[in-house]
């Protein structure tokens, strides 16, 4: 047992000692580094460690939470006592109860030795190479706002008075850049990124080239005409929408009447071309772990299949409300947060079409490569959205001139029904949570431009 599990156990004992009828402690320790480069130089280099404990205490069916960074005996005792005290303030909720322990199957492959093996100089060189690739790609590529490499190694331990006990370690890393291109009297930006378990899994040249290509492609962009037309969403945009759908499939949102998918279980909610599942154990998934934020085993859950809504995502509390089982979907933003229902790795099923085929099927439409304003332009309760977008016109089934400064608008349900084809090659994207998705063809969407 690691020292983290010892801290977790001690916190549980302290909370029950302070009067809690049940308690659970989540302890994490993260060490990471970040390198930002600019103009061929390292702009900043960050080395960091952080650790903390979060204690959830039950007083019967009341729940309280407290967290802190002081992992000394006295510190943990204080946090545990605060959690017990907080529980007394909450109202009784008959479904609030600690999760029962379950067999946790180990999940190998969450680490990567290259994270530890690559020293700071080597990962800085990776970031510099991302920037260099972009800058050397084209004379119109005038700069890079930031090229960043970051990695993190996280250890997690959980323990509860109900007998939950587990720990794991996982590592993730990413690199990205925001490239700046100039032409036609305007500046354009382009994002390139890559995700991996460790630095050896990143391809700096591909990342740099993607950012450059995206920025260059936007030179000379104008407003498209307002109309309804077919739209192809690239992987980054499809991922953002998949994330919104995943949010609406949280049983908490559903049970509290704040989801467009409430009451639709078993009904047709999408076209047959759109299938979605959540898999907290996918070996390549950045969010994979053996168990969720309350110690329940992660698993695969089919959400939308054959166009029908198959399941919502549940944590223990929302499952208790329906007399069902948790889908292992209790998520945490580290030790600071109470577990809450959220997708782990959302995976949109790939179809059979190349991007060229999707564009050909669209015929005359828009290829959307970026959306903005998702946090304010989407109503998560109703699914009505209107967001800013940019991309390329599609003319005669081929990519044509760049377009910007327009919105795409509609309603999530109608959009899902209008997905007419999915691309064959999915990609992991860090938008909308952790999402793997191919590009998607939507038969009709409202474009508002000039």
């Amino acid at each position, binding site marked *: 047992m690691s020292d983290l599990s010892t801290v977790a156990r001690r916190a549980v004992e302290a909370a029950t000692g302070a009067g809690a009828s049940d308690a659970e402690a989540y302890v994490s320790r993260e060490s990471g580094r970040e390198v930002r480069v600019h103009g061929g*130089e390292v*702009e*900043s*280099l*960050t*080395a*960091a*460690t*952080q650790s*903390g404990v979060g204690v959830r205490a039950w007083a019967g069916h009341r*729940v*309280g*939470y*407290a*967290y*802190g*960074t*002081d992992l000394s005996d006295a510190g943990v005792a204080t946090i545990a006592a*605060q959690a017990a005290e*907080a529980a007394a*303030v*909450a*109202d*009784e909720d008959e479904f609030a109860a600690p999760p029962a322990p379950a067999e946790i199957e180990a999940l190998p492959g969450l680490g990567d030795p290259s994270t530890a093996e690559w020293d700071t100089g080597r990962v800085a060189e990776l970031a510099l190479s991302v920037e260099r690739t972009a800058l050397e790609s084209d004379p119109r590529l005038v*700069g890079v*706002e*930031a090229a960043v490499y970051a990695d993190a190694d996280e250890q997690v331990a959980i323990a509860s008075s109900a007998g939950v006990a587990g720990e794991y370690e996982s590592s993730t890393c990413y690199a990205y850049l925001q490239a*700046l291109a100039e032409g036609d009297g305007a*500046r*354009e*930006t382009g994002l390139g990124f890559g995700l991996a378990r460790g630095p050896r899994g990143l391809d700096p040249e591909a990342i740099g080239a993607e950012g450059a290509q995206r920025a260059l492609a936007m030179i000379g962009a104008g407003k498209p005409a307002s109309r*309804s037309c077919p739209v192809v969403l690239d992987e980054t945009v499809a991922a953002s929408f998949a994330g919104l759908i995943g949010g609406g499939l949280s049983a908490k949102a559903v049970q*509290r*009447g704040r989801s467009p998918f409430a009451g639709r279980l078993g009904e047709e909610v999408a076209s047959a071309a759109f299938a979605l599942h959540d898999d907290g154990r996918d070996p390549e998934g950045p969010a994979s772990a053996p168990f969720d934020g309350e110690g329940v085993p992660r698993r695969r859950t089919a959400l939308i299949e054959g166009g029908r809504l198959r399941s919502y995502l549940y944590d223990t509390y929302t499952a208790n409300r329906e007399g069902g089982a948790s889908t292992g979907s209790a998520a945490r933003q580290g030790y*600071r947060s*109470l577990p809450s229902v959220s997708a782990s790795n959302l995976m949109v099923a790939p179809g059979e079409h190349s991007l060229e085929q999707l564009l050909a099927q669209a015929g005359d439409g828009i290829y959307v490569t970026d959306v*903005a*304003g998702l*946090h*304010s*332009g*989407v*109503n998560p*309760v*109703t699914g*009505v*959205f*209107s*967001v*800013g977008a*940019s991309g390329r016109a599609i003319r005669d089934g081929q990519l044509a001139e760049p377009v910007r*400064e*327009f*919105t*795409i*608008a509609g*309603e999530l349900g109608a959009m899902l029904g209008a997905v007419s084809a999915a691309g064959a090659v999915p990609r992991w994207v860090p938008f909308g949570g952790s999402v793997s998705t191919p590009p998607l063809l939507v038969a009709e969407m409202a474009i*508002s*431009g*000039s």
Partner: protein
Amino acid sequence: MSELIDQAVAERALARALANGGHFAEVFAERRRGQTLAIDESRIESVQSGAEEGAGVRVVDGNTTYFAHVDGLEPAEIERAADEAAAALRAERREPRPLQAREVTPLPIEHRPEDVPAQRKAEMLRELDERARAKGPEIAQFTASYAEARRQVTVANSDGLFSGDDRTRTRIGAQAVARRDATVETGAETLGAHRGFELLEDDPGQIAEQAAAKALTLLDAVPAPSGSMPVVVGGGFGGVLFHEMTGHGLEADHIQKGASVYVGKLGEQVAEPLLNAYDDGRLPGEWGSDAIDDEGRPTQMTQVIEDGRLTSYLYDHLTAERDGVASTGNGRRESFRHLPIPRMTNTYIAPGEATPEGMIAEVERGFYAVSFGGGQVDPATGDFVFGVSEGYLIEGGKVTSPCRGATLIGNCLEALAAIDAVGDDFFMKTGICGKGGQKVPVGTGQGHVRVRAMTVGGTER
């Protein structure tokens, strides 16, 4: 005010930070405490409290910053962070200047939230819940949250600065869901300040009624129009328009990297002469105010637009050093785990002479955006987008139907130049601004403002 770490500890850490060279070093120590609770389905839940403390040490050598942070304020831990930050440097030791303690008066807090029993906060949320639901049976769901946060900070740097601040912010938010048959709409309202519980002693329940009223109004909404038209933006949170459209583009890091449409525009006429705008971190009690910024520099009022002319960028220590100017006190960080970067504090368009009624009366067909859910900008291209949370059609000089699903979209320089009326009904609202993965509290404000033409992206067919 006593500092979180002793002057001697800070001096030792700074000396170690410069052990391998560097022209600037800084120690930032912080203790943060907070409590939050919520009401949902008329039940108090999510009661939580937290306490974190730690320190971040940075060393700057030429254009490179080395940064390390640790949990805890033990001198040994802070020195470890200093050693770690210095580890990658290979130059000659430098000596920091002796520290000179600077007395700072934090913003006054009358009623410390941590002294208020949690039960009283819970009672207040219950009152919000009751008042929202009292607006009628069409209010199907209501949630409200309470949050208090205290941040005590101490900053010491190798230029001899030794200073600190003690900040307490309090905020409540209310979200209502209204339902009529198959139509569902939402409404939200917040109230926050750099103040204590005194903020909530004067009828906090009204925000619940306002949120409920917004949701109810939208039940009668029509789909928002699409196309270019005159847009009148409401006061208060309408100021997020200026925040996104101009504020971000004036942050000196964007400017120095050529990633802002405002590069090279200093001194130029970028708006009509009727426009005056400020960033002011000293507004008493405002959400984005602090006594000092997170680099220890006293906050200040900076006029960024004077009679339509661009007059200043917003600087932190490093960007100011690069431009050979003084910091404008805009070096802010989310916590000791983040590096400071140029950030807005309270940004606002100063009151003008128009009245809201007058500027609406002059619009034949347009859109009235009372409030936004938020906005986003790419400072490099100037493209921005705002989600409208409460909006109406303007027809024949009158406000008519409420609209759902509207987004405003445009380009900064064009939209800024197209502001042709500024109202006299000024007020401030609170926001949380994200940049570079860091969230900080910011204030936004204005009276009503009219933009000659802007693209409204709606769902109307």
